[in-house]
C-alpha cells in the first residue's frame, strides 16, 4: 500500500484571458504524481505558475485541459481530503485560535463535542497549547502560521498543500517551524499521507522534500525532477546536502540560459525588479578577492549574507545585460563586467546604459521611440500595451518598472510617474 497514488496530474493546461483579448498560457503540459508518504517540492521562480497549479489541485480553480485526480476520482471542486496552508496564513482575525481551527470541521457536520476534542488535539500537536483563546493579531508570525497548520491538519486530510508557508517568516522562525514539522512527519504523528510544497527556496526544498520538481517559467511546466536521497533528519552542513543544492543551482542556471536563448529576443523577456545598487554590489563583490571575477553562487550568497534565491535574480540581471555569465552554479564577470567594477560612477552609468541599449530590447525600443518623436516624449500606455501582449498585467508592470529604474541609473531616458510620460529630458 505504500505506493498507493494519492494524486495524479496529467497534461494540465491553464490560461487566463488577457486584457487585450486572447489567452495567456500560464501552465502547459504539467505532469505530477504524489505517492503515499511522500513530500514533493515544486521549485521555481515567482510568477512561474506554481501557486496557480496548487490551486488546481485544491479544486479552487479548473484547468482548461488535462486531468487531475485524487484517489482515482477526478477533482471538480475542493475535495474533502486536501487541505492547504497559505503564504499569508489566511487566518480570520475575528476568530480566536481555537475558532479558526474549528472552522474546518464545522462544515463537516461533526458533533460539537468531537469538533472541540479534535481541534484541541490539533492545537496540542502543533505546539499551540495555551494559545487557544488568543486572537491571531496577538500572535507572532510563526505562531500564526502554526495556527494555519493546525487548521489544515484538523480535518485529517490525505494531502497537505503548502503554498510557500515559510516565506513570510523570518529566517530563524521559519527554520524552527520547518524542523518541528519534519520531526512530527518523521515520527508519523501527522494525520496526513503526503505533502506538496511550493517554494522558491532551494535549501528549503532539499531539506524537506523526497523529490523536487523544477518549474520553468512562461508557460509554467515541470522541467526536471531531482530525487533527494538523504536520510532524515537532514543536516544542512552535510556534503551530500550541499551537492544537491549545487546540482539544483546548476540545473536552474542552465535552464535560465536556455530559456533566455528561447525567449530572449524581443520584448517578451520578463524582468524581475532588481535595483541597480544590488547589481553594482554583486559586480563589486565578484570582482574583489577572493573571487577575482568568478564565484560559486552559494558561496558568495553566504558571504553577502543573502539567501541564494535572493541572489539569483541579481545574477540573472547581470547575465541579461552581458555583464556576467552564469554557468554550472558559478557566476563569472564578462569583460564589460570587469570594466564596470573598475570604473568611476559616471563611466559605470555609461557602461550600464550601453548594456541596456544592446541587450534589453524594451529599453532600446523606448529610447528609439523617444528619439524618433519630435516631442521626445511618449506615454506609458504605448509600451505597457505592447508588453501585455506577451505577459500578464502584473508581469508587464514589473518589467516596465525594472526598465525604468535601470534606465534612470544609466540616464538613458527619464520617466514622470505623475503624468505617466517617458521623456529624454532630465531636470537640469
Amino acid at each position, binding site marked *: 500500500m505504500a505506493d498507493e497514488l494519492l494524486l495524479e496530474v496529467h497534461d494540465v493546461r491553464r490560461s487566463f484571458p488577457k486584457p487585450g483579448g486572447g489567452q495567456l498560457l500560464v501552465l502547459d503540459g504539467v505532469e505530477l504524481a504524489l505517492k503515499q508518504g511522500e513530500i514533493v517540492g515544486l521549485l521555481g521562480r515567482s510568477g512561474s505558475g506554481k501557486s496557480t497549479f496548487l490551486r488546481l489541485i485544491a479544486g479552487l480553480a479548473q484547468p482548461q485541459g488535462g486531468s487531475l485526480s485524487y484517489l482515482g476520482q477526478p477533482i*471538480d471542486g*475542493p475535495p474533502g481530503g486536501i487541505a492547504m496552508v497559505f503564504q499569508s496564513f*489566511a487566518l480570520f482575525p*475575528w476568530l480566536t485560535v481555537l475558532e479558526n481551527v474549528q*472552522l*474546518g470541521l464545522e*462544515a463537516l457536520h461533526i458533533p460539537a463535542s468531537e469538533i472541540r476534542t479534535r481541534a484541541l488535539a490539533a492545537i496540542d500537536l502543533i505546539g499551540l497549547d495555551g494559545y487557544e483563546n488568543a486572537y491571531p493579531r496577538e500572535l507572532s508570525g510563526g505562531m500564526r502560521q502554526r495556527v494555519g497548520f493546525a487548521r489544515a491538519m484538523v480535518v485529517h486530510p490525505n494531502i497537505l498543500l503548502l503554498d510557500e508557508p515559510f516565506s513570510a517568516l523570518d529566517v530563524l522562525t521559519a527554520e524552527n517551524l520547518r524542523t518541528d514539522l519534519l520531526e512530527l512527519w518523521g515520527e508519523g504523528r501527522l494525520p496526513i499521507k503526503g505533502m506538496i510544497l511550493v517554494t522558491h527556496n532551494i535549501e528549503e526544498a532539499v531539506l524537506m522534500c523526497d523529490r523536487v520538481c523544477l518549474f520553468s517559467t512562461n508557460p509554467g511546466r515541470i522541467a526536471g525532477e531531482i530525487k533527494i536521497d538523504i536520510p532524515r533528519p537532514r543536516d544542512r552542513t552535510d556534503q551530500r546536502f550541499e551537492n544537491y543544492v549545487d546540482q539544483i543551482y546548476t540545473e536552474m542556471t542552465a535552464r535560465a540560459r536556455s530559456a533566455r536563448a528561447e525567449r530572449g529576443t524581443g520584448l517578451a523577456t520578463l524582468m524581475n525588479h532588481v535595483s541597480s545598487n544590488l547589481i553594482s554590489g554583486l559586480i563589486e563583490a565578484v570582482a574583489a578577492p577572493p573571487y577575482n571575477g568568478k564565484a560559486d553562487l552559494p558561496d558568495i550568497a553566504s558571504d553577502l549574507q543573502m539567501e541564494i534565491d535572493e541572489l539569483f535574480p541579481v545574477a540573472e540581471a547581470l547575465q541579461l545585460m552581458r555583464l556576467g555569465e552564469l554557468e554550472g552554479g558559478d557566476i563569472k564577470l564578462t569583460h564589460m563586467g570587469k570594466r564596470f567594477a573598475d570604473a568611476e560612477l559616471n563611466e559605470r552609468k555609461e557602461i550600464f546604459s550601453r548594456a541596456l541599449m544592446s541587450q534589453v530590447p524594451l529599453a532600446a525600443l523606448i529610447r528609439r521611440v523617444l528619439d524618433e518623436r519630435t516631442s521626445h516624449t511618449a506615454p506609458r500606455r504605448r509600451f505597457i500595451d505592447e508588453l501585455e501582449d506577451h505577459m500578464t498585467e502584473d508581469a508587464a508592470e514589473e518589467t516596465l518598472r525594472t526598465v525604468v529604474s535601470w534606465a534612470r541609473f544609466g540616464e538613458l531616458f527619464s520617466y514622470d510617474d505623475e503624468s505617466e510620460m517617458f521623456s529624454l529630458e532630465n531636470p537640469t
Partner: protein
Amino acid sequence: MKILPPVSIEARRLVPSRWDVLAAILVLGFIVLFADASRALVQPLSSLSNAPLSLDPWNLPGYALRTALRMLIALGVSLVFTLTYATWAAKSQRAGSLLVPLLDILQSVPILGFISVTVVFFLSLAPGRIFGAELAAVFAIFTSQAWNMAFSFYQSLRTVPDEMIEAGRMFGLNGWARFWRIEVPFGLPSLIWNMMMSMSGGWFFVVAAEAISVGPTTIVLPGIGSYIASAIKQQNLGAIAWAIGAMLVVILVYDQLLFRPLVAWADKFRIDNDDSEEYPESWVLDIIRRSDLMDRLAAPFHTFMSWTYKLTAPARGRAGILRDAVPSRAGDAVWWVFLAALAVFALWHIWLMLGGTLTWTDIGSAAGLGAITMMRVIILIALASVIWTPIGVYVGLRPHLAHIIQPVAQFLAAFPANLVFPVAVFVIVRYDLNPDIALSPLMVLGTQWYILFNVIAGASAIPRELRDAGTNLQVKGLLWWRKIALPGVFPYYVTGAITASGGSWNAAIVAEVASWGSHTVRAHGLGTYIADATQAGDFHRIVLGIATMSFYVVVVNRLFWRPLYWFAERRYRLT
C-alpha cells in the same frame, strides 16, 4: 478608519459612461413617479396635524425617545438594504455596472428633496393615521444613511483577500456561510464607522422631517424636531434651549450605548495588524462582556445560524469551484431589454410630467439659483478650510489636546445645526442683516467639523520621524507649513472637505430660508427654490430643483473633487 468619499469620487473615469446616464434617468424617473403620485393625492389628505404639541419641557424626554426610535428603525432598514444591495452589486458583474452608478446619483440627491416628493405618497399608504407620516420620516433618515453604508460594504466585499475566500472554500463553507463568516465580518469595521457617520447626518434630517408641510399637507410628528418647529412658531427661546439640551443628551446616550460599544466590538474584525491606532474602548461593552448575559442571548442566534449553514450541502464538488466567469449572451440580452424598457418608461414619465409645463426659462432660473448656491458653498468651504486647517494641525500635533478636541468635533458634526438656525434668524431680524450673506454661514455650521476632525487625524498621523527631520533641518514658519504640515494633512483634508461640501448642499434647503415666529428670512439660491416649491406643493418645481441640485453635486464631484482626491492620494498619502 477614514470617511469614505462619495461614489463619484471613487469612479476612475472622468467622462460619464452610459451607465451613469442610465442611472440618472432611472433616479429622475423614480422621483417623477413619486412626485406624480403625490400630486394626485395631495388634496384629500390635507392637514394631518394631530394634537398640538406642548412646549412643556417635561414632554421632551418622551419626544426625544420617539425621535431616537425613528433613527434606530431607519438604521435597521439601512442595514438590510446594505446587505442586499451591496452584495448584489459586488457579486453580479451585470448588476454591479448599473447599481454602483445608481448609488452615485442617489447620493447626490438632496435628502430633503426625497422627503418632499415621498411624504404625500407615504401618507397615502395609511390615510388619516400617523403611521404614514412615521414611514415618511423613517424613509428620510434611511436616505441619509443607506447610500454611504451600501457603498462602504460594496468596497469591502471587493477587497476581501483572495486567500481568505480560498480558505473558506477549502474547508467546505458554502456561499451563504462564507458571506456571514468571512465577508460580513471583514466589512464590519468600515460599515459600522460609516453607520456612525451617517447617523450624524441623520439627526439633521430627522429634525426637518418631523415637521414639514408639502402644499396643504402638514405633518407634525411628536418628536424633538416638531417641538423645535413649534418653539420657532411661538418664538419661545426657552423651549429651544431645552430642545438643544435634550438633543445633546440623546446624542450622548446614542454614542455611549450604541456606537461606542459597536465600534469597540467591531475592532476585532479589523484585518490590519498595526497596533499604532489605539483600541477603542467602551464601558458598556466591558460590562456586557463580563456578564454572560450577551452570550446567553446570542446563543440561540448562533445555533440558528449554524443550522442555516448546513441547509445546503457544503461547497464540495462542482458548487465550490471557481470558474472563469463567462457571461451568458441570452442573460445579457434579457437584462439589456429589461433596462431599455425601464429607461423608456422613466423617460416617458419624465416627459409626461415635465415636458409640457417646464419652459427653458424655468430651467434657466433653477440653474442660475444653483450657481448662486454653488458660489456660497465654495466660499464657505474655503473660509472654513482657512480657519480649521491650521487649528486642526495645531491640535493634531499635540496628542493630549487631540484627545479632547477630536471627540468634541465629531460630536458637533452630529449635532443638528438646524436647532441653532432660529437663534441666528433672531439675530438677523433684530440687527437687520443682509440674508444673502448672513444666512450663508448656517450652511456649514454642521459640516465644517468634518474638515476639523479630518485635519486633526491627518496631523496626528504624520510620522514622528518626518517631523523630527523637519526640526533637525531647521524648517520653520511658512516653509514648515508649505513643505511639511500642509502636504502631510492634505489627503485627510480633501476627504473632509468633500464630505463637508456634500453636506452643505444638503443643508442649503434648510439654511437658505429660515423663520422666527412671523418673520421669514430668505436668501437667493437653489435651496430656497426647493423649500418654496415644497411649501407650495408645486411638484414640477420640486423635481426640477432636485434634479438641478443633483446635477450640480455630481458635476462638482467629478470635475473638481475627484481629480483633487486622486492627486492627494497619489502624491501625499503617507503609507
